[in-house]
């Protein structure tokens, strides 16, 4: 898709073959992920088990595949898709290539919610941890909206209030942790992000919310391009920019909050993957949102595979892998796109 047109016709803006290719990539990567691990499972038997054919895995091995590896891979798919997509949407809405899904204080709010859960009643409340972090994220974003006053006339003022809310939430969190030092370890590992013990329950509820959010975003994805222009330009092209921004931010926040409550704070996916896809396809149109979701999913599945195998038997926190891989990638893409001043 490098060259745009020759002679008399501009070539199509988006090539859906790329979307198809990223879908195939995802399937392949998931198979890879469930095939590897400290315990060796025969590849043939894995296939047979998945398709319900005779001669598949039995007993402990089967449980390992179905109840451990598969939900973990699927959770990585869902969370990766959610983070990448909401990062891309925030970048469009705020016209800021450095935006990530944790803008508007969502990360700090989720962290505060998690800390409250962990410090309130230890093990008992641990199962409520996802709920607390989810609402923490949502509340932080709502407060950012509230503080910035207008419902969006100025995307930048919303960004600033997000920073203020985030700082405040972090301060409260730090205070709580100081008063309850036994929470330090659990909160720290939550912050690093973990897909370590995914289960089908988690996969189910997180996929419902994230599916809803992503469906909304992909439905409006084509119109999101209008938000890259001034409000008047967008209006002239048939868009209601304020309404579209509200819908987009609500859906993106829902996706982010769900992802965070399922797997903690995993960084870099939301900021790197959109640029990666845009860099490879040479397009910034939001028609690429579905592709970004698929690539984000593959990215996180691979990162999780690394987290499980690189330092086996220890687990590397997945946030470390995404940072190690994400940061250099990001620099390369930035230079190629010459986002840095020419």
């Amino acid at each position: 898709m490098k060259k745009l047109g020759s002679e008399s016709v501009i070539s199509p803006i988006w090539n859906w073959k790329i979307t198809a290719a990223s879908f195939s990539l995802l399937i392949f990567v998931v198979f890879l992920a469930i095939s590897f691990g400290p315990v060796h499972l025969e590849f043939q038997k894995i296939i047979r088990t998945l398709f319900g054919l005779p001669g598949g895995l039995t007993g402990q091995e089967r449980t390992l595949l179905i109840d451990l590896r598969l939900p973990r891979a699927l959770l990585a798919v869902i969370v990766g898709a959610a983070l990448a997509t909401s990062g891309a949407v925030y970048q469009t809405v705020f016209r800021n290539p450095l935006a990530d899904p944790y803008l508007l204080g969502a990360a700090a709010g989720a962290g505060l919610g998690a800390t409250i859960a962990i410090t309130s009643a230890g093990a008992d409340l641990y199962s409520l941890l996802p709920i607390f972090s989810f609402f923490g994220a949502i509340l932080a974003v709502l407060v950012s909206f509230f503080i910035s006053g207008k419902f969006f006339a100025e995307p930048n003022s919303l960004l600033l209030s997000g920073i203020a809310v985030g700082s405040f939430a972090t301060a409260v969190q730090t205070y709580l942790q100081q008063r309850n030092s036994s929470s330090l370890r659990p909160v720290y590992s939550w912050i690093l992000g973990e897909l370590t013990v995914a289960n089908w329950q988690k996969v189910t509820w997180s996929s419902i919310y994230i599916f809803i959010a992503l469906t909304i975003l992909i439905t409006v994805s084509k119109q999101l391009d209008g938000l890259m222009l001034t409000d008047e330009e967008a209006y002239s092209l048939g868009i209601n920019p304020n309404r579209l921004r509200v819908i987009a931010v609500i859906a993106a926040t829902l996706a982010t909050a769900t992802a965070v409550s399922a797997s903690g704070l995993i960084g870099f996916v939301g900021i790197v993957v959109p640029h990666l896809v845009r860099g490879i396809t040479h397009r910034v149109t939001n028609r690429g949102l579905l592709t970004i979701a698929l690539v984000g999913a593959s990215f996180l599945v691979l990162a999780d595979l690394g987290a499980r195998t690189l330092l086996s038997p220890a687990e590397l926190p997945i946030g470390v892998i995404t940072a190690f891989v994400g940061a250099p990638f990001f620099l390369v893409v930035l230079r190629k796109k010459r986002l840095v001043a020419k």
Partner: protein
Amino acid sequence: MIKVEDLNVRFGQKEILKDINVEIEHSKWTCLVGPNGAGKTTFLKALLGSQSYSGSITDSGAEVYGNHDRNVAFVPQQPQIPIGMSVSEYVMLGRSKRDGWGNESKKSRTLVADILKLTGLFGMLNQFVSQLSGGEMQRALIARALAQEPTLILLDEPTSALDLHHQIAVLNNIELLKERGVTIVSTMHDITLAAMYAEKIVVMREGKVLLSGTSDFVIHSPELQVAFENRISVFTLDSGRPVIVAKKDLSN
């Protein structure tokens, strides 16, 4: 005909436009002139339909506020420049009104190619919009507006960043739109150019319309002088073209 009746626009306590009554003819070029702060840009936004107002603005009888049935192109003075977007992708955005978002037809893609050639941007179609010079950017804006095939085109200072010969080239291209029945409303600092292209001129000052009428009439009127606090001089060339310049000696 676009009828503007008793138009008032307020931002909080501040009155930006006061009691405006004008008529803008279809398929003609109307230009708004006046000093800074006269409310010209706000007037354009009101005509677009994105700016709320009290009073009435009707285009062929239909109120314009929130009305997306019209095809209006808006060329802002300072656009938002999307990062990482190529020129052709940018101009193609204009087709979203006709084709719907995200569905460029082959016809659209051919049209955009033609427009890029017309505006001299074809050689840059793969370049990032963010890398264009001020003048090239302004041409890209015009190109996008042309791609939209609008019935009304609103331009806010369309030539301020262009060098002389490009100014004329762009304005000539816009003028061609009249043949297709497109109504043109623009704001311009350069009154000489306004006089060259606009059939009708509306003189504004501090939110009010001082005078509106044909270019000839307005150029030689006292209201024009009042609008600019008597700091301009009007000359007429042998060809009959008026030239309006600022006085060097600013003492009245």
